[in-house]
């Protein structure tokens, strides 16, 4: 059996990301390790409270020798333009979560809106990464 353990997001600043994910989004730190022998590479993972087995690694955009400067700049720009991917969250009460996150200063792009598949909303992290937060529709027959 294969399971998803960690998915990765680029962030412009790991400290800023850490503050956003923990203080505003309410996620918890699962690991935060800096390795001096690897050029101070920092492995920083977070996930929602109650979901410890799947994490997001908030990855700093590396310069040379990992990425040459042109590539690093392109990744920074694509992330800033919101073109670096999306995380899809699910909750059983999107309106309550929306109010709570908004009160903590999360800037929403879409307030919760009824769709055919559920009630959907979206926001961004400080780097521009896109998050959707959805409550699945309970279909009655």
């Amino acid at each position, binding site marked *: 059996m294969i399971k998803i353990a960690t998915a990765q997001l680029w962030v*412009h*600043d790991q*400290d*800023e990301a850490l503050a956003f994910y923990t203080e505003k989004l309410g996620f918890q730190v699962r690991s935060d390790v800096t390795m001096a022998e690897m050029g101070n590479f920092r492995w920083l993972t977070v996930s929602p409270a109650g979901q410890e087995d799947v994490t997001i690694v908030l990855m700093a955009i590396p310069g040379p020798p990992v990425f040459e400067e042109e590539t690093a700049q392109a990744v*920074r*720009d694509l*992330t*800033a*333009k*919101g073109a670096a991917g999306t995380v899809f969250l699910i909750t059983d009460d999107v309106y309550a979560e929306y109010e709570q996150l908004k009160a903590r200063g999360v*800037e*929403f*792009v*879409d*307030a919760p809106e009824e769709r*055919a598949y559920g009630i959907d909303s979206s926001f*961004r992290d*400080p*780097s*521009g990464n896109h998050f959707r937060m959805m409550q699945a*529709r309970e*279909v*009655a*027959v």
Partner: protein
Amino acid sequence: MAYAPPARHLLRARDLADARYAEPIGVEDMAAAAGLSRAHFSREFRRAFGDSPHAYLLTRRLERAASLLRMTDRSVAEICFDVGLTSVGSFTTSFTRMFGASPTAYRAQFPPAAAWAVVPSCVVRVYGRPQHRTFREDSANGRD
């Protein structure tokens, strides 16, 4: 404050259009969200996203209007105002240019909005229950 590439500010402006298209916002408000002068902003926005901010905001509004035409039974004028536009004439002209059909003709291409409405089962049960009628033959058989 943490480093943010210039494009992050442009994305903030685009997000503003996506979030608040229903309000009477314009390119000036988008430029302010990006913290740039209007002329500089328009140039940079187009370079980053391929459309001018004006075109982005208008097409976002028209996209939302198209959705409302498909999913609701609101009038064309109501939908025009719902998406932050104020002139029904301009709305109809822009919509027709972008979608190749007038709002009314566009709507007619899709199933009626009622087909999409997910009505809770309790409502279906209460409002869908036929009114009881008695028939003459029932009375004739001694029932009422």
